[in-house]
């Protein structure tokens, strides 16, 4: 789960990382009260998860109350990557010089967390030159590892000491809150020489949420995605018009590729998961039914433990309820024959191979 900047900054503050004074507002009417606390000039930042927020006009510096009110009203209505902000962050502007980079992230290849630091912040970490990478032992990042890191980044004296302490705080945050990524980009050197976190990107480990009930209360990014995860299947909304449903993440990914290669555009990725029961199949199809951009549905099942007949029963029931988009299905594997018999007389069209089903579904769109 990805946190909004303001949620990430709340965490940073709680762990002792310096951030500018800021207030989160839910609408333009809260701006005046917020400005009293934050002061001018103020940076007004759209709280969306989409990237490219600055370029899209979602981050504005205001010098007067009028400018701030006007910018807040405008940004609140501005869609970025299709996403409308649910809040704005009003933050005291921090005049600063150098921008640096600091993050704690999972290194999948090395199979450990690493702290990454760099003197050239504001850019993408992949393309960042001269970054310093420090593997973190399971027990955490101690001073003996953080100090050489600061030195390698060329930070000495008071600033070196600040970096050591921020790196250790970030790592403790990452470990205790079980984050996949905690990133501060930029970590800015303010005019008085102190280091301040100007942005935050925090991604929580979804699988660890059961140990962090405070986060599992947060509303899901997408209501249908939230419903899906409650029902025990994986759902990702996409922009096309053909809903793609299957069992197993790899199989559904591969089906998206087949659809795209055939000139189709997937409306969603829906993985029923292994050993799917009829109830779960029905819940999944009802989510697809409510997906406004889905005009057709492709179901690709390779049944092993998942019985094709269970999927067929679920399909028949949901189609029977009415309102279902046209369904193109390939149900192979265990109890394939029974699945065929169950679906006889329903509008569901069955195909022998995934390729045939994909071709038919794409040409129907």
């Amino acid at each position: 789960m990805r946190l909004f900047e303001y949620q990430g900054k709340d965490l940073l503050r709680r762990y002792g990382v310096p951030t500018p004074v800021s207030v989160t507002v839910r609408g333009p009417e809260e701006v005046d009260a917020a400005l009293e606390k934050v002061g001018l000039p103020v940076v007004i930042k759209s709280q969306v998860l989409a990237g490219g927020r600055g370029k899209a006009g979602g981050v504005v510096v205001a010098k007067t109350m009028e400018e701030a009110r006007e910018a807040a009203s405008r940004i609140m209505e501005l869609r970025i990557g299709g996403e409308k902000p649910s809040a704005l962050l009003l933050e005291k502007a921090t005049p600063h010089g150098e921008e640096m980079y600091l993050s704690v992230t999972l290194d999948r290849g090395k199979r450990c967390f690493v702290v990454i630091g760099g003197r050239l912040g504001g850019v993408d970490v992949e393309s960042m030159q001269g970054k310093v990478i420090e593997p973190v032992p399971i027990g955490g990042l101690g001073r003996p590892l953080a100090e050489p890191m600061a030195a390698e980044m060329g930070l000495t004296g008071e600033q070196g000491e600040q970096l050591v302490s921020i790196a250790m705080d970030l790592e403790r945050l990452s470990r205790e809150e079980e984050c996949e990524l905690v990133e501060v980009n930029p970590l800015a050197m303010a005019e008085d020489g102190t280091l301040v976190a100007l942005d935050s990107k925090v991604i929580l480990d979804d699988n660890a949420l059961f140990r962090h009930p405070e986060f599992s209360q947060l509303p899901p990014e997408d209501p249908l995605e939230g419903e899906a995860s409650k029902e025990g299947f994986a759902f990702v909304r996409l922009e096309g018009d053909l809903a793609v449903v299957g069992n197993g993440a790899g199989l559904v990914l591969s089906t998206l590729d087949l659809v795209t290669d055939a000139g189709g555009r997937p409306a969603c990725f829906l993985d029923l998961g292994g050993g799917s029961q009829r109830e779960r199949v029905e819940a999944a199809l009802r989510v697809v039914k409510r997906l406004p951009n889905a005009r057709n549905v492709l179901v690709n099942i390779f049944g092993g433990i998942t019985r094709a007949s269970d999927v067929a029963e679920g399909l028949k029931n949901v189609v029977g309820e009415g309102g279902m988009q046209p369904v193109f299905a390939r149900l192979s594997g265990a109890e394939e024959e029974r699945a065929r018999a169950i679906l006889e007389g329903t509008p569901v069209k069955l195909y022998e191979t995934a390729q045939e089903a994909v071709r038919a579904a794409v040409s129907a769109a």
Partner: protein
Amino acid sequence: MILPEKGDPVIVQGITGKYGSLHAGLMKQYGTNVAAGVTPGKAGETVVGVKVYDGVADAVRATGARSSVIFVPAPRFLAAAEEALNAGIKLVVAITEHVPIRDELQVVELARSLGATVIGPNTPGVILPSKLLKLGIMPVTSFRPGRIALFSRSGTLMYEIAHQLSTSGFGQAIALGIGGDPINGSTMVEWFEWARARDDVSAVVAVGEIGGDSEERLAQYITETRFPKPVFAYVAGRAAPREKRMGHAGAIIYGNYGTAESKIAAFRSAGVKVAMTPTEIPALLSANLRK
């Protein structure tokens, strides 16, 4: 990498659960010697003809098992895996899905210090069709004995591709799920290293997907060590969007990190033959191998 031989005792942790008992029965049916089950507080019970013990140490003492298949729910996985490793289990097959990353890292570290192997988590397990041995949940009908080693990050794609290989006359010496999580107990490279030394393996098929860089690392390994057997690959997720987790915890592209394009390019530059769809794999093998 220590895999059991035919007849070696295997234990199942979480055997009294719905999933654990179903698959303990199916493993037995296929030919695996499921010698004991473990569920705390259920000692003395019998599930699918298998005696249940309270702890792994008891089950190991009674059977001499060195392999365990774990089915417990994610919140109990760390404790179950630690218990197994500390009781002398040398091969842990972790079927459990949704394990927190930091729990996986702890298990990896403990296994490393004890010289044990972990497959998974979030894996369908491993099947050795010529030995009629399976430690996992895969449907056996997809698999036939043969000389191909099949390593996959995805479960159902592994079944589907094994099925295609089997019906085209390419049986498997081994089919193994690496796991769909960002952290794998054992990696593609480690299993290639295992396959390299096996006389009963003549070619390897790797099934990758978006996310991480295990395919890129594998390609580098193949090039640097001049891997001596033909390698074929398929990578799922060319059409996947960025920054979205696609079903598997590990299947996510961040920026340009983890794209299918990068993986396919890496494989090609290592001389690996890459199929664009799962159904292309048998044809690719036919064109390049003798059956």
